[in-house]
């Protein structure tokens, strides 16, 4: 059971406190409710570039990391399609330093042409390193583009292409900051060797004076229901053929998510899973196979990716996979199989709670999706899944017309 307290400042900043007196550390996590889904199709990759800019200094602080490191701390951040999340971990005695740093950049980020140019270069190198300069590196671009036609999930968080990143202006920075980096669009979680009173007074002191921004009205278009199968063939300089099957599914808060999350485990998590046993071990069609959900706040994807055994025809291997999925969607899953994935989920939850930073991040995310209490109750949602649910939801998801397929072929030299 993770105990926490929660309060909201007058400017709308939500604050959660998770006391743990067994550690000498404090974790400070700030989640901003902004991700690449808030971008427009002509200007993609900006939420992530902006995350880099947040370390370039603010009105009273020349460089974000320097004072934090001096306080014995460290920070990092990540951006995905839904959120931008920043965290600091430092000796609890220096907690106030993190409040000073985080509040100053929320109040008055200081970005000039020079820092924009610099971080633009760094992000371009990041783009090259992770998406261009390795085999299959472009697959997230292909997946997003094939599966989504209307919703902003049609581009990956890094951005559609280098040209978009090259084109941003200082004005984009100012507007984005003003709109999204406001207390009423953020969630602050402080964990570790702290007290609620201490966090309350520090929050008032450092964040209380930051003016609220305008309420954000999101107008993100719904992705229409896919009514016919989509296919894409790619030939590239990669070592072997790979198959990607993308099925539309529910959002992070839907029952569909909890059911299909368990289904992904039943199908392809580990050597005892159904698809591994049948398609890798018995039929020797794939060298590896994985299934996972994207778990996004708007309707997401259930993805199966597999690498074929050299010499095996991809279409033949795909047929066998389709047959397995069809059979799975017609046959009632064994009760024991379901209990097994629930036990795995329980264990994963316990291990994830060991680390104060994970707890703080999880609390912030659960608060964002509607209820911080999920940190203790989400397991019940998994436990409530029945065999009948698995059958029903698998039938909904694993329909041929709901599927997009990428055939990623190795260029034959």
């Amino acid at each position, binding site marked *: 059971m993770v105990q926490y307290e929660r309060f909201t400042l007058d400017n709308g900043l939500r604050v959660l406190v998770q006391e743990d007196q*067994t*550690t*000498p550390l404090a974790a400070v996590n700030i989640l901003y409710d902004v991700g690449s889904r808030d971008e427009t199709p002509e200007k993609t990759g900006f939420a992530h570039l902006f995350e880099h800019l947040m370390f370039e200094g603010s009105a*009273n602080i020349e460089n974000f*990391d*320097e*004072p934090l*490191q*001096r*306080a*014995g701390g*460290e920070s990092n951040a990540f951006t995905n399609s839904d959120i931008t999340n920043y965290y600091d*971990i430092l*000796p609890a*005695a*220096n907690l*106030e*330093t993190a409040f*000073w740093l985080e509040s100053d950049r929320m109040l008055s980020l200081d970005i000039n042409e020079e820092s924009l*140019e*610099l971080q*633009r*270069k*760094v992000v*371009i*190198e990041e783009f*090259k*390193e992770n998406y*261009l*300069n*390795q*085999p299959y590196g472009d697959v997230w671009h292909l997946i997003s583009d094939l599966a989504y036609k209307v919703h902003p999930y049609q581009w990956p968080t890094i951005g559609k292409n280098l040209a978009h990143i090259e084109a941003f202006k200082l004005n984009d920075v100012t507007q984005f900051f003003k709109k999204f980096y406001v207390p009423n669009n953020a969630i602050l979680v402080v964990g570790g060797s702290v007290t609620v009173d201490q966090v309350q*007074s520090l*929050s*008032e*002191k450092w964040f209380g*004076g930051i003016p609220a921004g305008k309420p954000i009205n999101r107008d993100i278009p719904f992705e229409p229901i896919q009514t016919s199968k989509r296919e894409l063939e790619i030939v590239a300089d*990669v*070592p*072997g053929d790979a198959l990607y099957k993308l099925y539309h599914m529910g959002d992070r808060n839907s029952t569909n998510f909890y059911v299909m999350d368990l289904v992904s485990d039943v199908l392809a998590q*580990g*050597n*005892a899973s159904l698809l591994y046993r049948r398609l890798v*071990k018995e039929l020797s069609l794939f*060298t*590896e196979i994985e299934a996972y959900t994207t778990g996004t706040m708007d309707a997401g994807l259930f993805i199966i990716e597999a*690498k074929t*055994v*050299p010499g095996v025809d991809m279409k033949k291997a795909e047929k066998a996979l389709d047959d397995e999925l069809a059979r799975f969607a017609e046959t009632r899953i064994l009760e*024991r199989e379901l209990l*097994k994935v629930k*036990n*795995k*989920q329980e*264990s994963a939850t*316990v*291990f994830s709670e*060991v*680390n*104060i930073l994970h707890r703080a991040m999880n609390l912030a995310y659960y608060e964002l999706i509607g209820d911080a209490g999920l940190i203790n109750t989400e397991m019940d949602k998994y436990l409530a899944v029945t065999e009948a649910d698995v059958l029903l939801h698998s039938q909904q998801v694993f329909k041929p017309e709901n599927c997009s397929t990428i055939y990623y072929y190795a260029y034959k030299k």
Partner: protein
Amino acid sequence: MPIKNNGKLDRSLTPALARVEQLNILQPQKLSLPNGIPVYVFSGLQQDAVRIEWIFNAGKWYEQNTLQSSMAARMMKEGSKAYPSHEFNDLLDFYGASVKAHGGADTASFQLYSLNKHLAPVLQIVEEVVKSPLIDPRDLEIVTQSNREQLKVNMMKPDYLADKAFTESLYGSKHPYGHELELEDYDNITRDSLLSFHKQFYTASNCSIIVSGNINDQVIKLLERFFGGADWLGAPATVSAHLELDSAERLVKYDAIEGSYQSAIRIGKKLFNKTNTEYQELSVVNTILGGYFGSRLMSNIREDKGYTYGIYSGLNSMRHGGHFIISTEVGVDVRQAAIDEIYTEMSRLQEEPVDSEELDLVRNYMMGRLLNGLDGPFKVAGMYKGLYIYDLDIDYLYSLVDAINTITPERIQELANKYFDPATMHEITVG
């Protein structure tokens, strides 16, 4: 009562800093099983979770053929005679337990993560796989095929190729620390060679156990019951000698790859491991140069020039040696400029004393890192693993704290001159 903000807060004033002066490190409880296996226990976790790690002297150092160590470790995840692959993994899943197996440079380890409440049946399943894994030929074929495909992917990445060329240049491609995998290595793997490797090295006489988490007497009793017997005594591994390349002479090598967007750069040299008397002080010098986000290399090459997404330097320690390495991936067009800047930063450490402001920051940062790295039984156990294989103890960390807090700018300069001279560095670039 909350303090109401009336707009008079002076944000230019830095909050006062407290210094982490000393650490209070969780000491292991040291036991031994009836058959002599040393057990190091780190207890006190609140959650109902436990991690058990079996460590054997069965790393690459002990191989007769390449891949024996990593594949013997890997095949422990494929079950035993009583619990073949599917049953083994199915039962572990059923109890929500998971295992990791790893063959490293000197040791091989098998890690078990489990909730306490399921530990008894889980250990019963794990016992046989540790003592006598099945290594079914079909399972071996699947694992080999999958690893081979993964290696083909790696062979197309400049960073993998640069790492490979770099370690080979230091130790020689036949040396266990210098050999990085080739596709042909997989051709020589047989069930028999893995079984004989396992039989020789995965024995009680060659094993240590580190237990961490929420540990009670019951956990220890279970370990005694399943792993404390004389049935798998074996003999301690003898340390064999390996012919090591003399790589004292500087080597510069550039393999261009047509169409590559980035070049992977590795710069470094052979040094020593963490038992060397200068290692702890040198780790402070390394931190200044490239060991953290605010380091000189990162500040210059990423935050000033924008040549890279990241650059780090590190001291790699093995039981019988060690080396210094700087790694980064940079745009192909700025390859030479980045290399020049790396040497400039090394020379600057040799020529100018570090000012007190920077040194103070690095001291605080390193102390904070240690505090973080020792937070809770899992983390302390992980840190301890990196000590005991060198016959070092927790005391080593206290002397590291001393080194961090007492090293002087003069001493830093002296060490930089002794060890970080650009003229002695191997320089490998790929891409």
